[in-house]
């Protein structure tokens, strides 16, 4: 008797779940796809940016820049692999993390801010702090043989204030700045 009642409830559950799947699992994502492609088509497809007609990345996904002529982003535990987002997961007292931070300080300077010395949560953080960007201006200008003013201009153009004036932090988009630097030439 009780088993029969349970079976009855399970079957009703299966039928109703199937119908809800159509509404919530198929129609709803399709509707959002439609809205997204009307209101913000570029963003819905990943904010892809192009240089000289070629796709070079996404405005929102960080890339690895190591040469002295580039603006350096944050260290990444995922090596900026778009298919393997993630972080180090190392604890605050981890000796391994301490070693990494100390090592980075030697390369990036004793005054480098925290975002320059730590890996991000996604491993794909497209931004750095304005402090870290400023510390790199001179190095980049020297490596490229251009005036610091022009490097500064690239960084300023890639700088965004806090959203609505008070949400989050000020950011410099590393890829945007580097696309501008790339256009400057050596």
């Amino acid at each position, binding site marked *: 008797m009780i088993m029969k009642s349970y079976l009855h409830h*399970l079957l*009703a559950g299966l039928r*109703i779940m199937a119908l809800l799947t159509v509404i919530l699992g198929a129609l709803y994502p399709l509707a959002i796809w439609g809205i*997204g492609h009307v209101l913000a088509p570029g963003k819905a497809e990943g904010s892809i940016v192009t240089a000289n007609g070629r796709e070079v990345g996404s405005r929102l996904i960080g890339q690895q820049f190591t040469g002295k002529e580039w603006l350096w982003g944050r260290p990444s535990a995922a090596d900026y692999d778009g298919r393997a987002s993630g972080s180090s997961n190392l*604890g605050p*007292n981890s000796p391994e993390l301490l070693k990494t931070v100390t090592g980075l300080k030697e390369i990036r300077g004793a005054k480098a801010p925290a975002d320059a010395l730590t890996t991000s949560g996604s491993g794909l953080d497209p931004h750095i702090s304005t402090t870290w960007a400023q510390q790199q201006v001179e190095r980049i200008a020297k490596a490229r043989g251009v005036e610091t003013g022009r490097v500064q201009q690239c960084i300023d153009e890639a700088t965004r204030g806090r959203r609505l004036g*008070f949400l*989050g932090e000020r950011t410099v988009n590393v890829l945007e700045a580097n696309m501008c630097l790339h256009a400057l030439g050596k």
Partner: protein
Amino acid sequence: MTTTTAGLLQLAFYICLIAAAHVPLGAYMARIAQGEKHTRVERLLYRFTGVDAGTEQNWRHYARSVLGFSLAGLLLLYLLLRIQRWLPLTFGRENFPADGAFNTAVSFVTNTNWQWYSGEAAIGHLPQMLGLTVQNFVSGAVGISVAFALVRGFARMGTDKLGNFWVDVTRVSLRLLLPLAIVVATIFVCEGVIQSFAAGHQVTTLTGAQQDIPLGPIASQEAIKQLGTNGGGFFNANGAHPFENATALTNILAIWAMTVIPFSLPFTFGRMVRDRRQGFAILAVMATLQLASFGLAVAAELAHKGTALMAAGGSMEGKEQRFGIWGTVLYGTTGTGTSTGAVNSMHDSWTAAGGGILMLNMLLGEVSPGGVGTGLYGLLVIALLTVFISGLMVGRTPEYLGKRLGRAEMTSVALYILVMPMAMLFGAAITLMLPGGQATLQDAGPHGLSEILYAYTSGANNNGSAFAGFNAASPLHTVGIGLAMLFGRFLPIVFALKLAGSLAQQQRVPATAGTLPTHGPLFITLCLGIVLIVAALTFFPALALGPIAEALL
């Protein structure tokens, strides 16, 4: 503007957004719970599935419907994951192994969204939509339905009827969650959260390297992930990934979406029992706990204690630049204070004290403000316990809203409260004692214990966030945490419904001079005390060996 000013403004902005929604959304949910009329779509749906929407159910039938519906979801999702290779839009992703599919199906059906796998690598677009997105809706709807049933138990007299589960779950999905999700997803996609059915882009970067940029139908899933307090990310990095959480605006909207229903349900409760002050008292307990945990955690993260963090000059390991410390901590405390478990940073890398606060949020039983529905029914159970204990202390008859708390009611309350600690502590202890259990931890010493405690806390509380530093993919954990999630979800639901059943049958006794008023500062303070005492008595020994030891080292 200094970081502190901006941070405080951000907090104030968030509180205003929640306050603005509290009354209208709370009243709307009461109409959903009490309305007689079915919409046209709903009537079609009931007719098509042969569900009897006209009759109300007693607690046993209601519970069987909850279990039948959830089992159906479990089977469908398990099947989808086992056969995804042969489905369209999965781009060659492999079928899940049996233990992994069990863990993930349980995880999403129980509103936990614990993820042992890495989203971008393991699950195709179609199972994400048909399986995970759907469960994100309906598992949240189940929680709200159970909360409705318990509130009806308080509101009604002399009946064994608690409402109709099929009607509740359908209405909550279609009238509440779906419209909210459409609004939130639209804002998300305008800010840069992606909504694409393509596999991804292969690009050659400026420096000539290859980068693979994965795409997917994320905005639609991200919206309901927050609104249904689910938390399972499309990507491994969850809300830290720029495609899931693109700007500081999507960040604050996500935080709002996680908490707006849990913070509005107390108004629904007050409306349904015809005493707004009762709802306000519940809201005050939730808000106090949430604000206190935020304050403590933000102080801990700003102080960035820890050898590695001190050397770096800030607690930015595992955090994203666009959110900053304040935006990250607010997300972290709401993600753990609700049962969402979404993360926009890696909690394993927070300071010991900050990470401890996050764990404490879950240990309090997810009532600050808790998951959708679960937060309200969890806190109502705590309120009953408060009335009972304070009644014992002063020799008053324990009663709440005119309902006497006798043996039957207190048995349900006690069992409800004991389930989560049992599932968590026994689960963690058994795993550590099994051969190979300790080898799955990444760190040795207290941090290693913190990792496994966090995992089982997250599972048993249906939270789903992780101190990811251990091997969650080992069968030991997929099965162990899977069981913890099942027990932690459905046993409390059964006890809450049983409680609702015995409350609904009672007549209301008039309040006398001997009745403890269950609104006002005295009751709120007592309630807060009970929340903390229950958690402290249960978990202090385990915490002392893990995060507390680590913070003192």
